[in-house]
Protein backbone atom coordinates (compact mmCIF):
# COMPACT_ATOMS: atom_id res chain seq x y z
CA UNK A 1 0.00 0.00 0.00
CA UNK A 2 1.13 3.54 -0.69
CA UNK A 3 2.59 5.16 2.41
CA UNK A 4 1.07 8.53 1.60
CA UNK A 5 -2.41 8.85 0.28
CA UNK A 6 -3.51 12.43 -0.08
CA UNK A 7 -6.99 13.86 -0.13
CA UNK A 8 -7.02 16.74 -2.61
CA UNK A 9 -9.99 19.07 -2.10
CA UNK A 10 -11.36 21.94 -4.18
CA UNK A 11 -11.52 25.58 -3.08
CA UNK A 12 -13.20 28.32 -5.09
CA UNK A 13 -12.54 30.86 -2.35
CA UNK A 14 -10.98 31.41 1.05
CA UNK A 15 -13.87 30.04 3.15
CA UNK A 16 -13.86 26.83 1.08
CA UNK A 17 -10.09 26.52 1.50
CA UNK A 18 -10.36 26.97 5.26
CA UNK A 19 -13.15 24.44 5.64
CA UNK A 20 -11.24 21.90 3.51
CA UNK A 21 -8.19 22.36 5.74
CA UNK A 22 -10.30 22.17 8.91
CA UNK A 23 -12.01 18.96 7.83
CA UNK A 24 -8.98 16.94 6.83
CA UNK A 25 -7.78 17.77 3.33
CA UNK A 26 -4.08 17.08 2.72
CA UNK A 27 -4.00 19.40 -0.29
CA UNK A 28 -6.33 22.14 -1.45
CA UNK A 29 -6.38 23.17 -5.09
CA UNK A 30 -7.23 26.72 -6.11
CA UNK A 31 -7.15 29.12 -9.05
CA UNK A 32 -6.69 32.78 -9.86
CA UNK A 33 -9.57 35.03 -10.91
CA UNK A 34 -9.07 34.74 -14.64
CA UNK A 35 -8.98 32.38 -17.59
CA UNK A 36 -5.73 30.72 -16.49
CA UNK A 37 -7.77 28.00 -14.77
CA UNK A 38 -10.58 25.70 -15.83
CA UNK A 39 -13.14 27.08 -13.36
CA UNK A 40 -13.20 30.66 -14.58
CA UNK A 41 -16.66 31.65 -13.32
CA UNK A 42 -17.79 35.14 -12.39
CA UNK A 43 -16.86 36.03 -8.82
CA UNK A 44 -15.14 32.69 -8.18
CA UNK A 45 -11.51 32.07 -7.20
CA UNK A 46 -8.78 33.89 -5.34
CA UNK A 47 -7.46 37.41 -5.50
CA UNK A 48 -3.87 37.90 -4.35
CA UNK A 49 -4.73 38.79 -0.77
CA UNK A 50 -7.09 35.87 -0.22
CA UNK A 51 -4.65 33.38 -1.76
CA UNK A 52 -1.80 34.62 0.46
CA UNK A 53 -4.06 34.31 3.51
CA UNK A 54 -5.17 30.86 2.37
CA UNK A 55 -1.61 29.64 1.85
CA UNK A 56 -0.61 30.85 5.31
CA UNK A 57 -3.69 29.22 6.86
CA UNK A 58 -3.04 25.90 5.14
CA UNK A 59 0.71 25.85 5.76
CA UNK A 60 0.27 26.58 9.47
CA UNK A 61 -1.80 23.40 9.60
CA UNK A 62 0.48 21.28 7.45
CA UNK A 63 -1.76 21.34 4.37
CA UNK A 64 -0.48 21.97 0.86
CA UNK A 65 -1.91 24.51 -1.56
CA UNK A 66 -1.92 23.80 -5.29
CA UNK A 67 -2.79 26.32 -7.99
CA UNK A 68 -4.44 25.15 -11.19
CA UNK A 69 -3.12 26.96 -14.27
CA UNK A 70 -4.60 24.32 -16.47
CA UNK A 71 -5.99 26.10 -19.50
CA UNK A 72 -4.22 26.69 -22.78
CA UNK A 73 -2.66 30.09 -23.52
CA UNK A 74 -2.66 31.53 -27.02
CA UNK A 75 0.17 33.47 -28.61
CA UNK A 76 -1.46 36.83 -27.89
CA UNK A 77 -2.08 36.17 -24.19
CA UNK A 78 0.88 33.97 -23.36
CA UNK A 79 2.31 36.42 -20.80
CA UNK A 80 -0.83 36.20 -18.70
CA UNK A 81 -0.12 32.52 -18.07
CA UNK A 82 3.60 32.95 -17.43
CA UNK A 83 2.80 35.82 -15.05
CA UNK A 84 0.41 33.49 -13.22
CA UNK A 85 3.18 30.87 -12.90
CA UNK A 86 5.54 33.55 -11.56
CA UNK A 87 2.93 34.74 -9.07
CA UNK A 88 2.16 31.22 -7.83
CA UNK A 89 5.90 30.61 -7.34
CA UNK A 90 6.36 33.93 -5.53
CA UNK A 91 3.43 33.18 -3.21
CA UNK A 92 5.06 29.91 -2.18
CA UNK A 93 2.44 27.45 -3.41
CA UNK A 94 3.32 23.78 -3.11
CA UNK A 95 2.71 22.99 -6.77
CA UNK A 96 1.14 24.31 -9.94
CA UNK A 97 -1.16 22.11 -11.98
CA UNK A 98 -0.41 22.63 -15.67
CA UNK A 99 -1.73 21.27 -18.96
CA UNK A 100 0.12 23.21 -21.67
CA UNK A 101 3.60 21.80 -22.49
CA UNK A 102 4.88 25.27 -23.39
CA UNK A 103 3.89 26.59 -20.00
CA UNK A 104 5.44 23.54 -18.36
CA UNK A 105 8.69 24.29 -20.14
CA UNK A 106 8.51 27.91 -18.95
CA UNK A 107 7.78 26.89 -15.34
CA UNK A 108 10.52 24.25 -15.34
CA UNK A 109 13.10 26.64 -16.77
CA UNK A 110 12.15 29.73 -14.76
CA UNK A 111 11.28 28.14 -11.43
CA UNK A 112 13.21 24.86 -11.23
CA UNK A 113 12.28 24.50 -7.57
CA UNK A 114 8.54 24.75 -8.29
CA UNK A 115 6.73 21.41 -8.21
CA UNK A 116 4.75 20.67 -11.36
CA UNK A 117 1.63 18.53 -11.58
CA UNK A 118 0.23 17.45 -14.92
CA UNK A 119 -3.42 18.47 -15.03
CA UNK A 120 -6.22 16.16 -16.13
CA UNK A 121 -6.61 18.79 -18.86
CA UNK A 122 -3.30 17.53 -20.25
CA UNK A 123 -5.17 14.34 -21.11
CA UNK A 124 -2.22 11.96 -20.62
CA UNK A 125 -3.68 8.46 -20.47
CA UNK A 126 -0.55 6.31 -20.75
CA UNK A 127 2.74 6.02 -18.90
CA UNK A 128 4.80 6.86 -21.98
CA UNK A 129 3.21 10.29 -22.15
CA UNK A 130 3.59 10.81 -18.41
CA UNK A 131 7.22 9.72 -18.47
CA UNK A 132 7.84 12.08 -21.35
CA UNK A 133 6.51 14.99 -19.26
CA UNK A 134 8.76 13.83 -16.42
CA UNK A 135 11.83 13.60 -18.61
CA UNK A 136 11.29 17.00 -20.23
CA UNK A 137 9.74 19.07 -17.45
CA UNK A 138 10.37 17.04 -14.31
CA UNK A 139 6.69 16.76 -13.42
CA UNK A 140 6.18 15.16 -10.01
CA UNK A 141 2.56 14.14 -10.29
CA UNK A 142 0.00 13.42 -12.99
CA UNK A 143 -3.77 13.60 -12.63
CA UNK A 144 -5.26 10.84 -14.75
CA UNK A 145 -8.18 11.47 -17.09
CA UNK A 146 -11.35 9.73 -16.00
CA UNK A 147 -11.36 7.25 -18.86
CA UNK A 148 -9.11 4.49 -17.54
CA UNK A 149 -10.20 1.21 -16.02
CA UNK A 150 -8.69 0.10 -12.73
CA UNK A 151 -6.35 -2.30 -14.57
CA UNK A 152 -5.16 0.54 -16.80
CA UNK A 153 -4.58 2.84 -13.82
CA UNK A 154 -2.51 0.09 -12.21
CA UNK A 155 -0.48 -0.35 -15.36
CA UNK A 156 0.31 3.37 -15.43
CA UNK A 157 1.31 3.39 -11.74
CA UNK A 158 3.63 0.41 -12.23
CA UNK A 159 5.47 1.99 -15.13
CA UNK A 160 6.20 5.50 -13.96
CA UNK A 161 8.02 7.12 -11.04
CA UNK A 162 5.55 10.02 -11.30
CA UNK A 163 2.96 10.16 -8.50
CA UNK A 164 -0.50 9.31 -9.77
CA UNK A 165 -3.59 11.21 -8.67
CA UNK A 166 -7.07 10.09 -9.69
CA UNK A 167 -10.50 11.62 -9.45
CA UNK A 168 -12.57 10.17 -6.63
CA UNK A 169 -15.73 12.20 -6.56
CA UNK A 170 -17.72 14.83 -8.38
CA UNK A 171 -19.10 15.91 -11.70
CA UNK A 172 -18.23 13.98 -14.82
CA UNK A 173 -17.97 15.18 -18.38
CA UNK A 174 -17.36 13.34 -21.64
CA UNK A 175 -13.71 13.29 -20.63
CA UNK A 176 -11.98 14.58 -23.70
CA UNK A 177 -10.18 16.77 -21.23
CA UNK A 178 -8.41 19.76 -22.69
CA UNK A 179 -9.83 18.95 -26.10
CA UNK A 180 -13.59 19.33 -25.71
CA UNK A 181 -15.16 21.72 -28.18
CA UNK A 182 -18.85 21.08 -27.39
CA UNK A 183 -19.37 24.11 -25.15
CA UNK A 184 -17.38 26.29 -27.57
CA UNK A 185 -19.61 25.07 -30.40
CA UNK A 186 -22.69 26.33 -28.56
CA UNK A 187 -21.31 29.48 -26.92
CA UNK A 188 -18.31 30.57 -28.98
CA UNK A 189 -16.18 30.45 -25.84
CA UNK A 190 -13.63 27.67 -25.51
CA UNK A 191 -13.43 25.99 -22.09
CA UNK A 192 -9.85 24.93 -22.91
CA UNK A 193 -8.66 28.51 -23.44
CA UNK A 194 -11.16 30.55 -21.42
CA UNK A 195 -11.67 28.19 -18.53
CA UNK A 196 -15.46 27.88 -18.43
CA UNK A 197 -17.58 25.08 -19.79
CA UNK A 198 -21.08 26.56 -20.09
CA UNK A 199 -20.15 30.10 -18.99
CA UNK A 200 -22.78 31.90 -16.91
CA UNK A 201 -23.47 34.50 -19.57
CA UNK A 202 -24.73 31.75 -21.90
CA UNK A 203 -26.82 29.85 -19.33
CA UNK A 204 -30.54 30.36 -18.68
CA UNK A 205 -32.84 28.47 -16.32
CA UNK A 206 -36.59 28.82 -16.64
CA UNK A 207 -39.60 27.26 -14.98
CA UNK A 208 -42.19 26.53 -17.67
CA UNK A 209 -45.52 24.66 -17.65
CA UNK A 210 -43.70 21.71 -19.29
CA UNK A 211 -40.93 21.63 -16.65
CA UNK A 212 -37.74 23.42 -15.68
CA UNK A 213 -35.77 24.21 -18.81
CA UNK A 214 -32.05 24.78 -19.05
CA UNK A 215 -30.62 26.53 -22.07
CA UNK A 216 -27.12 27.20 -23.31
CA UNK A 217 -26.93 30.20 -25.62
CA UNK A 218 -30.58 29.63 -26.45
CA UNK A 219 -30.18 25.91 -27.18
CA UNK A 220 -32.53 23.79 -25.09
CA UNK A 221 -30.26 21.43 -23.16
CA UNK A 222 -32.77 19.69 -20.94
CA UNK A 223 -36.27 19.89 -19.52
CA UNK A 224 -36.74 18.40 -16.09
CA UNK A 225 -40.06 17.05 -14.79
CA UNK A 226 -41.36 18.17 -11.40
CA UNK A 227 -39.35 15.81 -9.19
CA UNK A 228 -36.54 14.94 -11.57
CA UNK A 229 -33.05 15.74 -10.34
CA UNK A 230 -31.34 18.40 -12.42
CA UNK A 231 -27.84 18.73 -13.85
CA UNK A 232 -25.63 21.53 -15.12
CA UNK A 233 -26.61 22.82 -18.58
CA UNK A 234 -23.67 21.33 -20.45
CA UNK A 235 -24.10 20.20 -24.01
CA UNK A 236 -22.65 16.73 -23.34
CA UNK A 237 -25.30 16.05 -20.71
CA UNK A 238 -28.32 17.32 -22.63
CA UNK A 239 -31.37 15.32 -23.67
CA UNK A 240 -31.76 15.40 -27.41
CA UNK A 241 -34.12 13.98 -29.98
CA UNK A 242 -32.36 11.34 -32.04
CA UNK A 243 -34.33 9.12 -34.41
CA UNK A 244 -37.60 10.30 -32.87
CA UNK A 245 -36.45 9.35 -29.40
CA UNK A 246 -35.52 11.94 -26.75
CA UNK A 247 -32.76 10.81 -24.39
CA UNK A 248 -29.30 11.53 -23.07
CA UNK A 249 -27.70 10.94 -26.44
CA UNK A 250 -24.11 11.71 -25.37
CA UNK A 251 -23.92 11.15 -21.62
CA UNK A 252 -26.24 11.07 -18.62
CA UNK A 253 -25.72 13.66 -15.92
CA UNK A 254 -24.06 11.53 -13.27
CA UNK A 255 -21.50 11.98 -10.54
CA UNK A 256 -18.41 9.91 -10.06
CA UNK A 257 -18.16 8.25 -6.67
CA UNK A 258 -15.29 5.82 -6.13
CA UNK A 259 -15.54 5.55 -2.36
CA UNK A 260 -15.97 1.78 -2.48
CA UNK A 261 -12.83 1.45 -4.63
CA UNK A 262 -10.59 3.06 -1.99
CA UNK A 263 -8.83 -0.14 -0.84
CA UNK A 264 -7.97 -1.06 -4.42
CA UNK A 265 -6.80 2.44 -5.34
CA UNK A 266 -4.50 2.46 -2.30
CA UNK A 267 -3.28 -1.05 -3.01
CA UNK A 268 -2.26 -0.38 -6.58
CA UNK A 269 -0.23 2.64 -5.48
CA UNK A 270 -2.33 5.65 -6.40
CA UNK A 271 -0.98 8.47 -4.25
CA UNK A 272 -3.80 10.98 -4.17
CA UNK A 273 -7.51 11.25 -4.71
CA UNK A 274 -9.09 14.37 -6.08
CA UNK A 275 -12.50 15.80 -5.29
CA UNK A 276 -14.06 17.79 -8.13
CA UNK A 277 -15.94 21.03 -7.50
CA UNK A 278 -14.12 24.34 -7.20
CA UNK A 279 -17.35 25.95 -8.43
CA UNK A 280 -19.24 24.61 -5.41
CA UNK A 281 -19.84 26.38 -2.10
CA UNK A 282 -18.01 25.93 1.23
CA UNK A 283 -20.97 23.80 2.43
CA UNK A 284 -20.22 21.20 -0.28
CA UNK A 285 -16.50 21.23 0.49
CA UNK A 286 -17.23 20.66 4.18
CA UNK A 287 -19.64 17.80 3.55
CA UNK A 288 -17.50 15.98 1.00
CA UNK A 289 -14.16 16.50 2.75
CA UNK A 290 -15.54 15.14 6.03
CA UNK A 291 -16.82 11.95 4.40
CA UNK A 292 -13.66 11.28 2.39
CA UNK A 293 -11.35 11.99 5.36
CA UNK A 294 -13.28 9.51 7.47
CA UNK A 295 -13.33 6.93 4.68
CA UNK A 296 -9.61 7.24 3.89
CA UNK A 297 -8.69 6.96 7.58
CA UNK A 298 -10.93 3.96 7.97
CA UNK A 299 -9.44 2.30 4.90
CA UNK A 300 -5.87 2.97 6.00
CA UNK A 301 -6.57 1.42 9.40
CA UNK A 302 -8.07 -1.75 7.99
CA UNK A 303 -8.19 -2.00 4.19
CA UNK A 304 -9.22 -5.69 4.26
CA UNK A 305 -12.48 -4.96 6.02
CA UNK A 306 -13.19 -1.55 4.55
CA UNK A 307 -16.84 -0.97 3.75
CA UNK A 308 -18.27 2.20 2.26
CA UNK A 309 -20.75 3.13 4.98
CA UNK A 310 -24.34 3.81 3.93
CA UNK A 311 -24.24 7.16 5.76
CA UNK A 312 -21.20 8.26 3.73
CA UNK A 313 -22.82 7.25 0.46
CA UNK A 314 -26.06 9.03 1.41
CA UNK A 315 -24.17 12.23 2.23
CA UNK A 316 -22.30 12.07 -1.10
CA UNK A 317 -25.44 11.22 -3.09
CA UNK A 318 -27.15 14.24 -1.61
CA UNK A 319 -24.66 16.66 -3.16
CA UNK A 320 -24.32 14.83 -6.50
CA UNK A 321 -25.26 16.15 -9.88
CA UNK A 322 -27.90 14.33 -11.89
CA UNK A 323 -29.83 11.17 -11.29
CA UNK A 324 -27.12 8.73 -10.38
CA UNK A 325 -23.65 8.08 -9.07
CA UNK A 326 -21.25 5.96 -11.08
CA UNK A 327 -17.91 4.22 -10.72
CA UNK A 328 -17.05 5.68 -14.10
CA UNK A 329 -14.52 3.86 -16.21
CA UNK A 330 -12.77 2.28 -13.22
CA UNK A 331 -15.00 -0.75 -13.15
CA UNK A 332 -15.74 -1.24 -16.82
CA UNK A 333 -15.26 -4.84 -17.92
CA UNK A 334 -13.77 -3.97 -21.33
CA UNK A 335 -10.40 -2.39 -21.96
Amino acid at each position, binding site marked *: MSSAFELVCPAGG*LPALKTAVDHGANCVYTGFRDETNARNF*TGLNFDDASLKTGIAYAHQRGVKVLVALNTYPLSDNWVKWTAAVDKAAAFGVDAVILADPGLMEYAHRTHPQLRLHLSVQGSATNYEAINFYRERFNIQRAVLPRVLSMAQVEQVVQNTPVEIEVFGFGGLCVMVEGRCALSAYATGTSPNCNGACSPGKAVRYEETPAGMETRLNGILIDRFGKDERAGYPTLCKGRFEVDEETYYAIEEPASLNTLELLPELMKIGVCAIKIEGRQRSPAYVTQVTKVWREAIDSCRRDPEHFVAKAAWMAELNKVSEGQSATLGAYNRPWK
Partner: protein
Amino acid sequence: MTNFKLPDFTLPAALARLGSKLPQLPPTLALVTGLNLALGRLLPREPLEPLIGKRFSIRVLDAGMTLRFTYGTRGFRPIFAATAPDLTISARSRDFIALLMREEDPDTLFFNRRLLMEGDTDLGLLVKNTLDGIDLPRFDAARLSPAELLHRLRARLATPHSA
Protein backbone atom coordinates in the same frame (compact mmCIF):
# COMPACT_ATOMS: atom_id res chain seq x y z
CA MET B 1 -18.03 24.29 16.71
CA THR B 2 -21.75 23.61 16.83
CA ASN B 3 -23.29 20.43 15.43
CA PHE B 4 -26.69 22.06 14.98
CA LYS B 5 -28.35 21.09 11.73
CA LEU B 6 -31.29 22.98 10.39
CA PRO B 7 -34.31 20.62 10.30
CA ASP B 8 -36.16 20.16 7.03
CA PHE B 9 -39.42 22.08 7.14
CA THR B 10 -41.97 23.67 4.86
CA LEU B 11 -44.25 26.38 6.14
CA PRO B 12 -47.98 25.45 6.10
CA ALA B 13 -49.63 25.93 2.70
CA ALA B 14 -52.10 28.39 4.21
CA LEU B 15 -49.23 30.71 5.01
CA ALA B 16 -48.15 30.85 1.37
CA ARG B 17 -51.71 31.74 0.35
CA LEU B 18 -51.94 34.38 3.08
CA GLY B 19 -48.41 35.71 2.52
CA SER B 20 -49.01 36.40 -1.13
CA LYS B 21 -51.95 38.66 -0.20
CA LEU B 22 -50.05 40.67 2.41
CA PRO B 23 -48.01 43.79 1.63
CA GLN B 24 -44.52 42.76 0.59
CA LEU B 25 -42.91 46.00 1.70
CA PRO B 26 -42.29 45.17 5.41
CA PRO B 27 -40.32 41.95 4.74
CA THR B 28 -38.51 43.64 1.83
CA LEU B 29 -37.56 46.55 4.08
CA ALA B 30 -36.30 44.11 6.70
CA LEU B 31 -34.19 42.35 4.05
CA VAL B 32 -32.68 45.50 2.52
CA THR B 33 -32.01 46.96 5.98
CA GLY B 34 -30.09 43.81 6.89
CA LEU B 35 -28.18 43.91 3.61
CA ASN B 36 -27.34 47.60 4.05
CA LEU B 37 -26.09 46.98 7.59
CA ALA B 38 -23.78 44.29 6.23
CA LEU B 39 -22.60 46.47 3.35
CA GLY B 40 -19.04 47.63 3.76
CA ARG B 41 -18.65 45.33 6.78
CA LEU B 42 -19.43 41.71 5.93
CA LEU B 43 -20.48 42.44 2.35
CA PRO B 44 -17.59 43.98 0.38
CA ARG B 45 -18.68 46.83 -1.90
CA GLU B 46 -16.18 46.44 -4.70
CA PRO B 47 -17.15 43.02 -6.07
CA LEU B 48 -20.81 44.08 -5.93
CA GLU B 49 -20.31 46.99 -8.33
CA PRO B 50 -21.68 45.03 -11.34
CA LEU B 51 -24.93 44.75 -9.36
CA ILE B 52 -25.55 48.52 -9.52
CA GLY B 53 -28.84 49.28 -11.22
CA LYS B 54 -29.87 45.61 -11.34
CA ARG B 55 -33.28 44.47 -10.12
CA PHE B 56 -33.58 41.41 -7.91
CA SER B 57 -36.49 39.30 -6.81
CA ILE B 58 -36.35 36.81 -3.95
CA ARG B 59 -39.31 34.43 -3.92
CA VAL B 60 -39.82 32.65 -0.62
CA LEU B 61 -42.15 30.02 -1.96
CA ASP B 62 -43.65 28.59 1.23
CA ALA B 63 -44.20 32.05 2.73
CA GLY B 64 -45.83 33.40 -0.40
CA MET B 65 -43.41 36.32 -0.38
CA THR B 66 -41.80 38.05 -3.33
CA LEU B 67 -39.21 40.57 -2.22
CA ARG B 68 -38.15 42.98 -4.96
CA PHE B 69 -35.19 45.26 -4.51
CA THR B 70 -32.38 46.92 -6.35
CA TYR B 71 -28.80 47.92 -5.61
CA GLY B 72 -27.38 51.37 -6.18
CA THR B 73 -24.42 53.47 -5.12
CA ARG B 74 -26.24 54.22 -1.85
CA GLY B 75 -27.02 50.60 -1.11
CA PHE B 76 -30.02 48.29 -1.39
CA ARG B 77 -33.60 49.61 -1.61
CA PRO B 78 -37.03 48.12 -2.30
CA ILE B 79 -38.59 48.55 -5.74
CA PHE B 80 -42.26 48.70 -6.55
CA ALA B 81 -42.31 48.68 -10.35
CA ALA B 82 -43.59 45.45 -11.86
CA THR B 83 -40.85 45.37 -14.52
CA ALA B 84 -39.13 42.01 -14.92
CA PRO B 85 -36.22 41.58 -12.51
CA ASP B 86 -32.73 40.87 -13.82
CA LEU B 87 -32.44 37.95 -11.42
CA THR B 88 -35.05 35.92 -9.57
CA ILE B 89 -34.10 33.37 -6.94
CA SER B 90 -36.83 31.02 -5.67
CA ALA B 91 -36.64 28.58 -2.76
CA ARG B 92 -38.39 27.61 0.46
CA SER B 93 -37.71 29.64 3.62
CA ARG B 94 -35.83 26.70 5.15
CA ASP B 95 -33.44 26.52 2.23
CA PHE B 96 -32.77 30.27 2.21
CA ILE B 97 -31.88 30.02 5.91
CA ALA B 98 -29.66 26.99 5.24
CA LEU B 99 -27.85 28.93 2.49
CA LEU B 100 -27.27 31.88 4.82
CA MET B 101 -25.91 29.49 7.46
CA ARG B 102 -23.63 27.88 4.85
CA GLU B 103 -25.25 24.57 5.65
CA GLU B 104 -26.36 23.89 2.09
CA ASP B 105 -24.63 24.30 -1.24
CA PRO B 106 -26.77 26.15 -3.84
CA ASP B 107 -25.79 23.71 -6.60
CA THR B 108 -26.95 20.83 -4.39
CA LEU B 109 -30.29 22.59 -3.88
CA PHE B 110 -30.51 23.20 -7.63
CA PHE B 111 -29.80 19.53 -8.46
CA ASN B 112 -32.52 18.58 -5.93
CA ARG B 113 -34.93 21.07 -7.52
CA ARG B 114 -35.16 23.13 -4.35
CA LEU B 115 -33.60 26.30 -5.73
CA LEU B 116 -34.18 28.05 -9.01
CA MET B 117 -32.27 30.98 -10.41
CA GLU B 118 -34.00 32.69 -13.35
CA GLY B 119 -32.80 35.61 -15.43
CA ASP B 120 -29.17 36.69 -15.72
CA THR B 121 -27.24 33.59 -14.60
CA ASP B 122 -23.91 35.39 -14.63
CA LEU B 123 -25.31 37.93 -12.18
CA GLY B 124 -26.50 35.06 -10.04
CA LEU B 125 -23.03 33.47 -10.12
CA LEU B 126 -21.48 36.77 -9.09
CA VAL B 127 -23.85 37.05 -6.12
CA LYS B 128 -23.34 33.41 -5.13
CA ASN B 129 -19.58 33.42 -5.49
CA THR B 130 -19.18 36.79 -3.75
CA LEU B 131 -21.21 35.53 -0.77
CA ASP B 132 -19.25 32.26 -0.77
CA GLY B 133 -15.98 34.18 -0.80
CA ILE B 134 -16.73 36.20 2.33
CA ASP B 135 -14.50 35.00 5.13
CA LEU B 136 -16.96 35.20 8.02
CA PRO B 137 -15.52 35.47 11.52
CA ARG B 138 -15.72 32.17 13.32
CA PHE B 139 -18.60 32.05 15.79
CA ASP B 140 -17.16 31.76 19.26
CA ALA B 141 -19.68 31.52 22.08
CA ALA B 142 -16.98 32.45 24.62
CA ARG B 143 -16.76 35.91 23.07
CA LEU B 144 -20.38 36.52 24.09
CA SER B 145 -19.89 35.89 27.79
CA PRO B 146 -20.84 38.91 30.00
CA ALA B 147 -17.24 39.30 31.22
CA GLU B 148 -15.88 39.27 27.65
CA LEU B 149 -18.53 41.73 26.42
CA LEU B 150 -17.79 44.08 29.32
CA HIS B 151 -14.09 43.85 28.60
CA ARG B 152 -14.64 44.69 24.90
CA LEU B 153 -16.96 47.59 25.78
CA ARG B 154 -14.35 49.04 28.16
CA ALA B 155 -11.64 48.66 25.52
CA ARG B 156 -13.82 50.44 22.96
CA LEU B 157 -14.66 53.30 25.33
CA ALA B 158 -11.00 53.71 26.18
CA THR B 159 -10.07 54.05 22.49
CA PRO B 160 -10.24 57.68 21.28
CA HIS B 161 -12.63 58.13 18.35
CA SER B 162 -11.01 58.77 15.05
CA ALA B 163 -12.37 61.46 12.76
